[in-house]
């Protein structure tokens, strides 16, 4: 389904939904996040696939988020994620610490339609002690002692990301970032903003097909040019490091963040893009 505006796409995200988000260096749906803030979405639960950055910090700062599961939260070279840290310290968000392959594995379990999947490692990490939803069993195929962690399937309400292109049938090209395919397969529905709609069937091109997520998983697509700004979109455009530094500085305190929000999010998009 193609939607006329990003606002229409944001309208499909209900309060309280569990949103799977790609990391900053992948296909971050920044413009969609700004639309969610303008729509005053509340009680969102975010899942970093497998880590989180600017988009998550922005949504947390704007008060849209009550819960976050991730394996790491930072602004990369721009430093730590200030609004995340402030919200965590103030107890405004609940944090579930994970480790990258565990998040991939929980999504793979949902993709496969099984209730759990095992993963090596983790044993001895305090993460395990703080994840009552993760189970430690003995490998049923081992003759002796061989503890292994079982992770529950995780099916987000929505997978949201920003891709370079979709076709008229709603197939979406993500290239080699195939963790997005697993994310879309695992999620109940996927909402995607794209740079452009192409007048060709991506499934018909053998070069593009492997990097294409079939429309079977995509509920809606809307165009958002430079929709990953101020982050990069793989194969399309680079990040805006100066802006990220500006954000990191502004977001150090509540007032600075409010000013940033006013200027780059709540103000109309034309301005924001300047």
């Amino acid at each position, binding site marked *: 389904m193609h939607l006329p505006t990003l606002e229409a796409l944001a309208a499909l995200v209900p309060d309280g939904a569990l949103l799977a988000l790609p990391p900053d260096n992948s296909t971050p749906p920044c413009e969609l996040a700004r639309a969610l803030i303008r729509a005053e979405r509340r009680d969102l639960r975010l899942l970093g696939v497998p880590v989180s950055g600017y988009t998550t910090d922005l949504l947390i700062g704007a008060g849209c988020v009550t819960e976050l599961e991730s394996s790491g*939260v930072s602004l990369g070279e721009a430093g*730590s994620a200030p609004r995340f840290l402030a919200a965590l*310290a103030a107890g405004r968000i609940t944090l579930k610490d994970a480790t990258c392959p565990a998040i991939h594995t929980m999504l793979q379990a949902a993709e496969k339609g099984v209730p759990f999947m095992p993963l090596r490692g983790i044993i001895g990490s305090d993460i395990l002690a703080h994840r009552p939803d993760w189970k430690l069993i003995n490998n049923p195929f081992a003759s002796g002692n061989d503890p292994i962690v079982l992770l529950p399937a995780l099916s987000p309400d929505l997978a949201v990301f920003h891709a370079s292109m979709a076709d008229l049938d709603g197939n979406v090209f993500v290239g080699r970032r195939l963790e997005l395919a697993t994310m879309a397969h695992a999620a109940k529905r996927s909402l995607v903003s794209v740079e452009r709609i192409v007048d060709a069937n991506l499934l018909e091109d053998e070069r593009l097909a492997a990097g294409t997520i079939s429309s079977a998983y995509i509920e809606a697509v809307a165009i958002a040019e430079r929709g990953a700004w101020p982050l990069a979109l793989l194969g399309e455009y680079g990040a805006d490091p100066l802006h990220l530094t500006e954000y990191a500085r502004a977001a150090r305190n509540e007032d600075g963040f409010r000013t940033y929000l006013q200027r780059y999010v709540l103000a109309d998009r034309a301005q924001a893009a300047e």
Partner: protein
Amino acid sequence: MIRDEELMAAALARLILDPNAPPARHIAVGAASAIPAAACWLLKVLGHPVRLSLLHKHSGNPFTSGTRELFDLAGQGRIDLFFLGGGQIDGQANINLIGTGDWPGSKVRFPGSFGSAFMYLMTPRTILFREEHSPRVLVPHVDIVSAPGISAPGVFRRGTAQALVTGKCIFRFDRDKARFQLSSIHPGETAESIRLATGFDYDCPAEVPETASPSAEQLLALRGPVHDRMLETYPEFCRRVWGRAKEQAA
């Protein structure tokens, strides 16, 4: 004049080639590990056969099955060596990337564990790297364990830390004793200054050599071809250390 980063890169390169350690045919390097990346590029540039997979390489990123592929490769036993750091690192080589104080970081919250809780156990060799060498970072016991330095018998684990490289020295890790031993001291430091700056206890032989400085050949390689190859993935680092990122990036 030799920069600290160049000294550490050369030291890491020597550790990677350690003939007594399992072979390092395939090394993966994370986004935050610029100096380890420099060490790996140095080996490649000087003709050592090693497959180098940079997690955050933009063009030609080696993980064509998505970011999960790094962890799958490690699960398969195909990643021979990985680098890990820590907000805290303790005397048993436990690392803490989560935070200090109570869970999940009541005093200082760090970014998070990333893949450490998996990679540390699945990789035959891990080299711990942290530039800051202070009692704040190198503690007797980490407040929170992101990934354990050693594991109980029966727990599937391919390897442990080989060494810990800091801005002041190199520690070797003895997995049987679960204890570090001072291995070499960077120029300008002494056994005493190391002891003072280290929060955990460790073994210290009577004679500790100085960390060897990079050779002229290594310096040429680092400042030339290594810099050029790192520019795309670590522009900030290149600018800071070699001050040439901007022009060349442009």
